[in-house]
């Protein structure tokens, strides 16, 4: 029932994304253009190349970072975990920065597909490395807060390295990098979209098949093992899922703050369950809704979407922190 309401909201927001824009194309024309109806060619181009691409990438980004946040919170048994706060996004950014600033020859010489693949690949590598670092820290240190602080420190260190790269980089690669850091969803091209969609779907699939292991992990790895869970294999699958989700979105849309932390909590509050088989779709829906709303708001105010998610995310994070203190 509640999931139906959430889905309707999603449809509504996607329609709003399709209808909103400066060129004055109505929702009806937009739908006609998408369904192959009789519309002028420039209308078709605007709708498919710009609006639909943007709507789909916002939806995918929202689903991806939220589900990533959920699996990280369960895996690390940390209610404040998320790809952004634990530095996984920073790792992905570093990978992307190294690629964009360090290998401009590579990225310009090769075709667009290889440039995208290289960007995604380096972001995945960076995300994976930071993920392993967080995993190592949280296995050694049982204290949630210490792990969070380490994640923040790691993020700060990475930012410093990125700034050094910016300082040393040449002008054209620097420009493309700065554009990327402000990364709005509008920068995702329709050529990049299939790549983004495929990687996000793969990540979501890995998360979905991990629903039962994630439920067992609610009691901690030790308990999960005594209930028949192959903890090591599960951990690898979940890492892969999180890296694909957070890494890909960071590579193509830039780092998206706090959404990954907030959506799982809202999903828990709405659904009233801790069962991942139900929580995963709820989290994905909430993530999509939040991301699309932030994107619409950012377009209204002409601000980068990352600014919007941070502005909306900070009070929500404070709510979560206070809720967990009780």
């Amino acid at each position, binding site marked *: 029932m509640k999931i139906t309401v959430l889905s309707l909201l999603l449809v509504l927001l996607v329609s709003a994304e399709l209808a909103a824009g400066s060129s004055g194309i109505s929702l009806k024309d937009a739908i006609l253009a998408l369904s192959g109806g009789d519309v002028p060619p420039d209308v078709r181009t605007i709708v498919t190349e710009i609006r639909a691409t943007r709507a789909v990438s916002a939806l995918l980004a929202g689903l991806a970072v939220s589900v990533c946040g959920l699996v990280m919170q369960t895996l690390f048994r940390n209610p404040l975990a998320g790809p952004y706060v634990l530095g996984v996004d920073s790792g992905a950014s570093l990978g992307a920065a190294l690629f964009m600033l360090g290998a401009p020859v590579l990225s310009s010489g090769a075709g667009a597909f290889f440039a995208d693949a290289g960007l995604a690949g380096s972001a995945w590598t960076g995300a994976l490395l930071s993920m392993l670092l967080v995993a190592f820290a949280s296995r050694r240190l049982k204290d949630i807060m210490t792990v969070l602080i380490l994640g923040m420190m790691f993020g700060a260190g990475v930012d410093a390295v990125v700034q050094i790269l910016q300082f040393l980089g040449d002008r054209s690669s620097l420009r493309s990098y700065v554009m990327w850091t402000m990364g709005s969803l509008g920068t995702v091209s329709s050529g990049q979209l299939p790549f983004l969609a495929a990687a996000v779907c793969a990540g979501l699939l890995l998360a979905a098949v991990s629903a*039962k292991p994630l439920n067992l992990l609610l009691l*901690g790895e*030790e308990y999960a093992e*005594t209930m028949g*869970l192959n903890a090591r294999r599960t951990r690898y699958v979940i890492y892969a899922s999180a890296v694909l989700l957070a890494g890909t979105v960071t590579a193509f849309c830039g780092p998206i703050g706090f959404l990954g932390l907030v959506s799982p909590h809202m999903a828990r509050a709405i659904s009233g369950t801790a069962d991942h088989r139900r929580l995963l779709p709820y989290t994905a829906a909430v993530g999509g809704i939040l991301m699309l709303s932030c994107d619409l708001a950012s377009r209204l105010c002409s601000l980068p979407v990352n600014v919007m998610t941070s502005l909306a995310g900070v009070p929500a994070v404070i709510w979560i922190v206070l809720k967990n203190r009780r």
Partner: protein
Amino acid sequence: MLKIENLSAGYARHAVLSGMDAVLPSSSLVAVVGRNGSGKSTLLRTLAGLLPPLGGCVLYDGTDITSVTVTERARMISFVSTERVRVGGLSCHDMVALGRAPYTDWRGRLSPADEEAVRKALSLVGMERYADRKMDRMSDGECQMAVIARAVAQDTPAIILDEPTAFLDYPNRCRTASVLKSLSSEEGKTIIWSTHDIDLAMGYSDCFMIVRDGGISLDSRDLAGALCAEKQENGPSGPPSPLLSRHIRLH
């Protein structure tokens, strides 16, 4: 039946306990006692298959626990750790249903037989009425009962519990011990629990496993040995007997 043969237990290259031999029959409730740091948890974690034995072996009905897969082992032994478990939003029923994980498919769907096992486990520990209650709205004692019910639902011939009464009040300790007793006598399980509650263990357990001096000794109802194991490091002029000091703490 559980058989321990020349078992050494410990971490990495450091053996905490060695040269242990014991046979624990089914339908028995075994209390593991010993001082803090004597190696009770190490022993129990090794018996549960969470720590690989450094030497020797642990046999459940003749099967070496290191020779089977994690899932097969989960059908032989269930485990309750010292950790307090409380998952917000998880209902008592869902918590207990997690114990059916070794028997369910990849999605974790419960068959009617699984549902029946969950219902039976809840009624064995007297928690039927709590099935729909969320864990964040339950007391420590109720949560602990749910965690034990989960181990019961796992339907294993052996259950190992590491200090299951540690953070419970007196009525809940008695209740836990009596539930364990009835599980061993009525369900025919081998139940091994560690505790510092010597008088509680005296009242309910069939035998003591005393952990001391890097080894174990098995004795049926050896109160003197059990007390000695608890007192050992205090020396003759140390604090009063643990029995007495616990009563002072309680009242």
